[in-house]
């Protein structure tokens, strides 16, 4: 079964080579950072988490988003998802792997990472995050491979794996909830201190994860001649569309609470993200995230409209565009604005901005490439096995 990854056309090998090159560059950049310290990044005393932790947060969402592809098939016996359920599980594996790499990249003393296990601290949310992320990785590796190898051998997956499949469903919710709790339990960071943070995380995850899968599915339809089917696509459109709408509804709730209550602490970060914020001690306006955040909202709303229209017009190109728009919109929202915005203003109400360095961006690109490398190999396997088993079915 694993040997399937060794057979591919020129496009396949070219893509893998490209990813390996970026991974190499990322590794070199990480060595630079490892030798110099995290000062090689743009993070500072005031903005202590940067693009690593924001990518981590976003990718936990992508991993959790796999749930929306797994749940209908296993819990509701929704047969049309037969071709994408495994893709969802394997997407979660790649996403969690990226999350763990981003966490390691962000540690000041990565060699001491095991201290989290050697000195377990149940009052820290990071302790639970460690458990749920590694647990989710384990569950998806187990369920994904058992189900796939059963299919490879032409049998139904064994019953003993069912409990693990059922556990993995609430577990997906837990990974993103705990990740939200990392932020929303901190006093004095008003932007994060909101009870709708976990729900909003889940809503954007359930849109972004399936949106990414949809784009990959449409690419595979062209390059690998692997079609997930119209029914599955229609269902995915519904899921992505409504999850994205719920995310914007929750964002609207945040905006209402901030501006109607008129409490400065609740407005500062929203001001910073969408309009820019003036540092009162220096009089300087800070607004480097404003174009991104405005684009995010515009792209998100446009994406939702196009998503529903694309189904009426049966246009795959439009469907792909709308999913890319939604994915990028939520990447900006959570992968940039949420984490970076939370640090503005500082606890002393100064405004300090963050700009990532080349080293940092290269490491980030390297991690993403590693994730896509894992994803490509896994999907290669799924497609080959699915095609074999379906061919066998046709003959018999």
């Amino acid at each position, binding site marked *: 079964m694993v040997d399937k990854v060794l057979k591919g056309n020129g496009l396949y090998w070219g893509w893998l080579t490209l990813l390996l090159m970026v991974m190499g560059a990322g590794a070199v950049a990480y060595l630079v950072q490892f030798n*110099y*310290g*995290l*000062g090689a990044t*743009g*993070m*500072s*005393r*005031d903005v*202590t*988490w940067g693009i690593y932790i924001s990518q981590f947060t976003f990718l936990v969402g992508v991993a959790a988003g796999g749930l929306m592809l797994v749940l209908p098939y296993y819990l509701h016996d929704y047969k049309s998802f037969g071709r994408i359920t495994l893709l969802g599980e394997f997407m979660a594996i790649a996403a969690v792997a990226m999350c763990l790499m981003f*966490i390691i990249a*962000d*540690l*000041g*003393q*990565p060699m*001491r*990472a095991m*201290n*989290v296990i*050697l*000195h377990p*601290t149940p*009052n*820290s*949310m*990071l*302790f639970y995050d*460690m458990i749920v992320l590694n647990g989710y990785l384990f569950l998806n590796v187990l369920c994904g491979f058992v189900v796939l190898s059963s299919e490879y051998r032409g049998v139904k997956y064994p019953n003993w794996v069912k409990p693990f499949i059922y556990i993995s469903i609430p577990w997906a919710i837990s990974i993103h909830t705990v990740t939200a709790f*990392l*932020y929303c339990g*901190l*006093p*004095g*960071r008003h932007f994060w201190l909101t009870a709708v943070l976990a729900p909003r995380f889940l809503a954007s995850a359930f849109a972004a994860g399936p949106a990414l899968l949809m784009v990959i599915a449409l690419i595979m339809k062209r390059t690998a001649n692997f079609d997930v089917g119209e029914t599955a696509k229609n269902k995915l459109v519904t899921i992505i569309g409504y999850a994205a709408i719920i995310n914007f509804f929750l964002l609207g709730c945040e905006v209402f609470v901030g501006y109607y209550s008129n409490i400065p602490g609740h407005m500062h970060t929203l001001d910073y993200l969408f309009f820019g914020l003036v540092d*009162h*001690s220096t009089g300087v306006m800070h607004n480097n995230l404003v174009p991104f955040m405005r684009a995010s909202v515009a792209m998100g709303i446009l994406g939702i409209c196009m998503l529903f229209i694309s189904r009426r017009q049966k246009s795959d190109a439009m469907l792909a565009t709308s999913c890319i728009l939604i994915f990028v919109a939520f990447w900006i929202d959570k992968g940039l604005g949420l984490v970076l915005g*939370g*640090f503005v203003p*500082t*606890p*002393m*109400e*100064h405004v*300090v901005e963050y700009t990532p360095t080349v080293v940092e961006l290269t490491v980030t690109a390297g991690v993403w490439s590693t994730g896509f490398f894992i994803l490509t190999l896994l999907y290669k396997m799924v497609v080959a096995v699915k095609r074999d088993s379906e061919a066998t079915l046709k003959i018999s």
Partner: protein
Amino acid sequence: MDNTRRKFLKLAGLTAAAGVAAPVLGSKALASSAPAAHGEPAAHGGGHHEEAPTGVRHGLVIDTGKFHDNPGLAEKCQKVCHDYHNVPKFNNGKDEIKWIWTEKFANVFPEHSHYKKDDRISSMNILALCNHCDSPPCVRACPTKATFKNKEGAVMMDFHRCIGCRFCMAACPYGARSFNWRSPRGSEDGKPFIEKYNPLFPSRMRGVVEKCSLCAWRTKQGKEPLCVEEANKGVEGAMVFGDLNDPNSDVSMTLRKRFTIQRKPSLGTKPSIFYII
């Protein structure tokens, strides 16, 4: 105080649930909680009325007026602290490490800041340092217990255990924590970041968080923190250090006599640093 009250309520609840008449037990618990509870409201939404029920809790009163009238005194306190503790100077805000420093009133007390402040308050430079909270969010957030409260209530750092995740820095509502973004033992243009290395206190390695420790290494020997000693050399009573749980300590006496404020009391962190404005 809270503890005994909670115990009493639990006890009362239990006896009621069991359907047993509670006068004997109840009155006993009430009697034991009565002397501790005199005249103080229950802890709601922060403020000055919280205490650790037992043991020592070191705290500090800073008389900002005395610092205001003696320009340069705050800087002296900072220098004596940073010199002794090998706090490096990077000359840029991004890598900056500081244990004690000054800020304007509006920045130290954003929640107390208001329209039309008087000239004195507006021009004040106020010392800021770790608040050594009784309920510290940084300790709650740390995934390895590398930051912890010692027996005297000071929030401490274990530089050898810290993994550098900086969760504590996100958790601290006072911006009191610094991170070693690069090695503090290095130098730039031939100038070391630690100007004069003090062999009596360890320098840190890159990738760990550091902060004020309320000079736990000194207070264990019965001495006052360096900044307090330095401040009082300049003006007697500019800083008062002592055990907040001991009603007869200087710091408790000062707190009874003078009106003080704390930084962001509404967050429930229960800071041990008090300010006379």
